[in-house]
């Protein structure tokens, strides 16, 4: 299986990533793009991570997805770090599969686990003021439902 994990400051192009991911066996590609959302005075985000552990955790999560949905032919996960403005892309999860159900399910699974396992931390910027984003219990609940048989 094609697996591409990248932690980077640079932006990415979703179309290019889908292109790189797909083969003739892929009938379906599901993607998720996370964006810096405005509102509440927010002007941007600052994201830090734990180099080394981040890549390791994400690869581990991707291997779990592959074991669970064997029709998957490729996974790309890109997470940006550093300072991002409102409207900028933060994260991309793209899953190619033979059929759509597994592409959707794995994409959602990967996002839920990324939110609860991958060592990233966000600060919200309101002009010069920075404040740490609190972990959301709803994200734990979202990840937890994949444990059910």
């Amino acid at each position, binding site marked *: 299986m094609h697996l591409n994990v990248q932690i980077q400051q640079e932006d990415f192009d979703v179309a290019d990533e889908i292109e790189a991911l797909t083969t003739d066996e892929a009938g379906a590609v599901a993607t998720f793009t*996370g964006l810096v959302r405005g509102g509440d005075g927010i002007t941007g985000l600052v*994201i*830090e*991570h*734990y180099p*080394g*552990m981040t890549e*390791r*955790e994400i690869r581990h999560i991707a291997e779990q997805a592959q074991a669970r949905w064997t029709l998957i032919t490729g996974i790309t996960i890109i*997470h940006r770090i550093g300072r991002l403005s409102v409207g900028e892309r*933060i*994260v991309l999860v793209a899953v190619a599969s033979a059929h759509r159900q597994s592409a959707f399910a794995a994409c959602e699974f990967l*996002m839920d686990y*990324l*939110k*609860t*396992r*991958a*060592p*990233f*931390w*966000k600060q919200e910027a309101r002009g010069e003021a920075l404040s*740490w*984003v*609190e*972990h959301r219990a709803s*994200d734990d609940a979202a990840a937890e439902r994949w444990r059910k048989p």
Partner: protein
Amino acid sequence: MNVLYFAWVRQKVGRSDEVIEHGPSLRTVGDLALLLASRGGGYAEAFADLRRLRAAVNQHHVGMDAPLAAGDEVAFFPPVTGG
């Protein structure tokens, strides 16, 4: 052991990493957290409530009861907020 701090833990302790010698009193991650809390100041603040903290040993998520050994890479951080 190499000890790493991330996010507000790093800010409160005022550094991103330090070397702490492993010894018999540091059986678990929780023992190390208590040692750090006992330093007072920003350390005491960061380690005041261990339920707010998460830890990793050698880049794996662990609980506070995880054992420690010489040469381990130990990290303390808040619950993650990526994605």
